[in-house]
């Protein structure tokens, strides 16, 4: 590097260090979404493969994704995800799959999640200190092995060393294996907790319910996951709020589908009793899904209006579910770079949030009615509760459009016809009166003495 030492310096060095870059990269992502990023890649691969392979003769009755599987294993020493979903071609790996950020000449696809081109790398760095990615496609295969501390030390190069690459050996099964070892201590301790796997399961089951229903086999530590497609109660006298709207903000068009309604409490109770079925966490709240990526999961914070536009969340609202599905250009989505949280300054979010708030107010007023009914009326006089009981849990896609939640109209409050009396009396006197009245309960003592006075002094 010849440099004229006579000259004054012309530039200041602003090149980032690798260490800084990696720290920033992993800082804003949580562990669950980081892993979900890897699952997303597998599911995308399965869809692509099944589209390319269809139609196969005589296989009509088969589910489109049933030949594809994803296995995730978490332990305190390693993370492994294995799939047979087509693999990453050597060419893609060389050109962009391992680049930080999507190169300008690789166009993003409408409706896809990956906008920033960081998902897989970020997950790998987030998890541990060394990783191996092996991928086999029909035509090619490669293996890359990275020792992260050593890679960080090497300041000159931003390349990952290919251990092996070339045309596919015939014996090799198609697919990708990602192994991360030397887990970071915080990751290992999270993996050691049951609740971590449960959270991961919930997110994958919800997020990929369609793929799971189409036969994709996803196993987490050996347990097969089931599609958990959201459903809301629909009946003759109860209909959720369902809105389809094209949102335009700053020149971006995003398709919004909003569903707000209620679930059956009986099912909820059944679920909580079965630890295998249910995490025990509360599922009430708002769900925001952008291009298939779940940004909010059962949100009950100020972000979606709780505690600002309506009261703070309270268990009386536990029947509530709200789903907002956004599809469109990835760059318009209201997410932060990690795609893990809502960017509140996003123009699309500012346009969508009012719909969320209006729906929440609507639902709140119905839930307040339910609470009043249950508190004040006996079972024969609870029209909304009865309506919900008659309704059917229905998939979002099958719900008819409705600008408002529909429930039976509200009768005006009726004036109270009874009054409750409560007071304390000395125990010995109480017992004497009880004996004299020949009754067993305090309620009957009260009624008896009141009746005695009424008959003698009022009637």
């Amino acid at each position, binding site marked *: 590097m010849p440099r004229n030492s006579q000259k004054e310096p012309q530039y200041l060095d602003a090149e980032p260090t690798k260490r800084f870059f990696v720290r920033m990269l992993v800082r804003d992502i949580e562990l669950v979404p980081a892993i979900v990023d890897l699952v997303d890649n597998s599911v995308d691969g399965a869809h692509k493969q099944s589209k390319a392979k269809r139609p196969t003769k005589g296989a009509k009755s088969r589910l489109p994704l049933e030949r594809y599987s994803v296995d995730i294993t978490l332990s305190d020493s390693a993370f492994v995800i294995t799939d047979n979903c087509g693999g990453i071609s050597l060419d893609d790996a060389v050109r962009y799959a391992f680049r930080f950020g999507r190169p300008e000449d690789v166009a993003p696809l409408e409706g896809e999640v990956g906008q920033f081109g960081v998902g897989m790398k970020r997950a790998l760095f987030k998890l541990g200190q060394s990783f191996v990615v092996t991928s086999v496609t029909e035509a090619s295969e490669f293996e890359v092995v990275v020792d992260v501390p050593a890679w960080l030390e090497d300041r000159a190069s931003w390349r990952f060393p290919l251990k092996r690459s070339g045309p596919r050996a015939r014996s090799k099964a198609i697919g990708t294996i990602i192994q991360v070892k030397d887990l970071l201590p915080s990751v290992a301790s999270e993996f050691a907790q049951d609740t971590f796997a449960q959270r991961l399961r919930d997110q994958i089951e919800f997020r990929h319910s369609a793929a799971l229903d189409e036969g994709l086999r996803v196993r987490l530590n050996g347990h097969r996951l089931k599609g958990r497609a959201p459903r809301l109660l629909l009946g003759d006298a109860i209909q959720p709020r369902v809105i389809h709207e094209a949102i335009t903000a700053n020149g971006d068009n995003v398709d919004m589908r909003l569903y707000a309604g209620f679930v059956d409490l009986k099912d909820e109770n059944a679920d909580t009793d079965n630890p295998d079925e249910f995490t025990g966490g509360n599922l009430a709240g708002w769900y925001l899904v952008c291009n298939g990526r779940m940004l909010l999961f059962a949100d009950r914070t100020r972000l979606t209006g709780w505690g600002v536009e309506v009261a703070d969340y309270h268990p009386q609202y536990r029947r509530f579910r709200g789903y907002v599905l956004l599809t469109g250009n990835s760059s318009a989505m209201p997410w932060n770079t990690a795609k893990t949280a809502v960017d509140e300054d996003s123009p699309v979010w500012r346009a969508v949030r009012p719909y969320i708030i209006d729906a929440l107010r609507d639902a709140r007023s119905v839930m307040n009615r339910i609470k009043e009914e249950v508190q004040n009326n006996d079972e024969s006089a609870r029209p909304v509760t009865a309506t919900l009981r008659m309704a059917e849990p229905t998939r979002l896609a099958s719900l008819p459009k409705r600008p408002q939640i529909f429930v039976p109209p509200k009768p*005006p409050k009726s004036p109270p016809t009874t009054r409750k009396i409560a007071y304390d009396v000395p125990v010995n006197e109480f017992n004497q009166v009880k004996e004299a009245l020949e009754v067993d309960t305090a309620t009957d003592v009260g009624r008896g003495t009141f009746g005695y006075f009424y008959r003698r002094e009022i009637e």
Partner: protein
Amino acid sequence: MRGWQFRPNKQIQRLMCIDAMRRLSAFRPLNDYRYIGLGGYEFIDFDLVYRSLGIKRMVSIEDTGEVERYEFNRPFPTITIAWGNTNDELQKLALDPPLIVWLDYCCALNKNVLQDVRLLGEKLEPGSFVLVSVNAHQPRDGLRLEDLEHRVDSGRVPIDVSEEKHLDGWGMAAAHRRILEAELRSGIGSRPNGRRFEQVVNIHYRDTNRMQTWGGVIVDAATEHRFDAANFRNLPHVSTNDQPVIVNVPVLTAREVLVLEQRMGSRRKAALPWMADKDVQDFELLHRWYPRVPAPM
């Protein structure tokens, strides 16, 4: 005259508000407006709005079991009653037509009130008028700040309201006004479409407790000139800032009223020497709102 008999300050406050509402004719004919209020079984404000402004389409929100009594007292058939609390019922009403909304609560400012105010901020269209009345009574010294924080959430309390003394006297009402305005503006800002709020009413009055009424008009660029034409500022009882109009009328006999009116502005002291200067001033400020006093025969 029922508004007068027991609650003169409240009635004067009502008349002042009605007077300000009359200026809305700069936006559109008054009978194009609809009115939403909390009539109570007396429907006093409904009666005034109906008779003074000619507004017929009205909704009263009532959370009561006394359905029969309220229905019985409903003065005009064009008033419909929405049975339920304001949080539940207000959001069901159409809030986009030209509206005058007067939420005359009897409670102190609290989170439920703020939820309603926020909703109005989100939804009211330019040219609509919003009024909120709340109890501004301050609890015992030592409990004031805590009480306010509890009612509205400490996050909403302005940063310079940090000591009991800031909530003395009408201090609670002053804090309420700022919190109400912030909430309304926040509601307006959450649905960005060029609207803004112009305060017109900031009245403090003595009923059985300290009470306050606050509100104004929603305006945007297209209605700006109409707002200017309405010229609210030249009404003597209008306040566009934190300086309230205080309604606290002296108790006077008919004879005293007549003399005071006749001699307004000159030789006050000589007129009725037993009256405090302050009372004479209050009278002069508010005399227009007193009921007409017949001349002694």
